[in-house]
């Protein structure tokens, strides 16, 4: 490696190796890949990949999150959250698009704010014609 003529590391913005332990807030505008151990918050504007060997104790937030390792803390994905078969999440999750594969462990509360809104609106539209129907039947009586 000494005198190496490489121009620098390539690939995702931040990669944390399996034998690395971090304490604090890890934040990057680009992708983060974690194989090691982090105690603290992990934030990315793009994607976070929590590999099988990874352990995160703290909140995780990004656009797209893929979990094959272990997270003890809240997980917030503005886009897609995928918990893979080896993935373990202990904490609340918030996501627009959630996928939990068979074998994965998820213990916590799940919130899907946008879907909740849509569902409420759908329910309203279903309930409104029903009300009209009951009022008509009342008039007949």
């Amino acid at each position: 490696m000494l005198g190496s003529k490489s121009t620098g590391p390539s690939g995702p913005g931040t990669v944390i190796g399996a034998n690395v332990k971090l304490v604090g807030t890890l934040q990057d505008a680009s992708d983060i890949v974690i194989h090691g151990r982090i105690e603290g918050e992990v934030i990315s504007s793009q994607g976070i990949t929590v590999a099988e060997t990874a352990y995160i104790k703290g909140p995780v937030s990004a656009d797209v999150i893929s979990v094959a390792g272990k997270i003890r803390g809240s997980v917030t994905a503005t886009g897609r959250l995928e918990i893979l078969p080896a993935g373990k999440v202990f904490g609340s999750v918030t996501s627009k698009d959630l996928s939990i594969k068979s074998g994965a462990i998820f213990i916590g509360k799940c919130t899907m704010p946008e879907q909740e809104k849509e569902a409420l609106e759908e329910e309203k539209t279903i309930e409104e014609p029903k009300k009209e129907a009951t009022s008509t039947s009342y008039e007949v009586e």
Partner: protein
Amino acid sequence: MYYYIIEAPKGRFVQRNEKVKDILGDLGIAGETVSPSAARTIEELTHLGVIKGYSTIVAVGSESLANKVITALAAEKTSGELVLGIIPNDFTSALAKKIGASDLRSACEALKFRKLATIDICLIEPNKYFITNAQVIAPKNSEIYFSFEKIKGKALADNISIYPGLKIFFHDRNLEGGTSIKFYNWLFGKKREDIFSSNFKTKRIRIESEKANLPVYVSGEIVAKTPVTFHNRSKVLKIIVARDKMKEKSS
């Protein structure tokens, strides 16, 4: 007019230096040439060039020479107005790639066309600068402690590379595995999945080692030992680059 600091001629470079002077003369950009010696260090020569009013200092020689000139330029009050030109020794080096020169002639022509690029340089506290890369090297996988921004960390690594922009790359020897794994991978042409290397970018990082003070190498020379702090100085150095390099940047 350019001020050329030409590395003291040694071995095969004696003829090369003469060739450089000939090409510079042909291109009409010959200037004052000086060479470091026991009496005048690179830093002193650089300072002398600035005092004489030269705004373009050209380092002709190795990466080590270029880094020493940069270190001297950074110490000058007028460093923001100064321009660095480079004619490297080795055209396969990261330094040559940085300026986009493929051979001696193209490096000299770049000086004539004087296309400027403003680049990041890295500071090793207290006062050493580099523009290509630095490495912290351990003889075996060692526990390395580091801190940057709001993070404190611990890693196993035998080599840490630091690039301008302060891109940090940790190499963990576990990646290579034991002899049997190496043999197996060699036999079946397999490449082990890299889950051990780390890389990230920051503005400042402090690196400490668990036991011995590890050496920090820049262009093959030990310039510091751990504990050591690296800073990125963003867009502070104007260098002359080849025209192709400019096209490459704009595309």
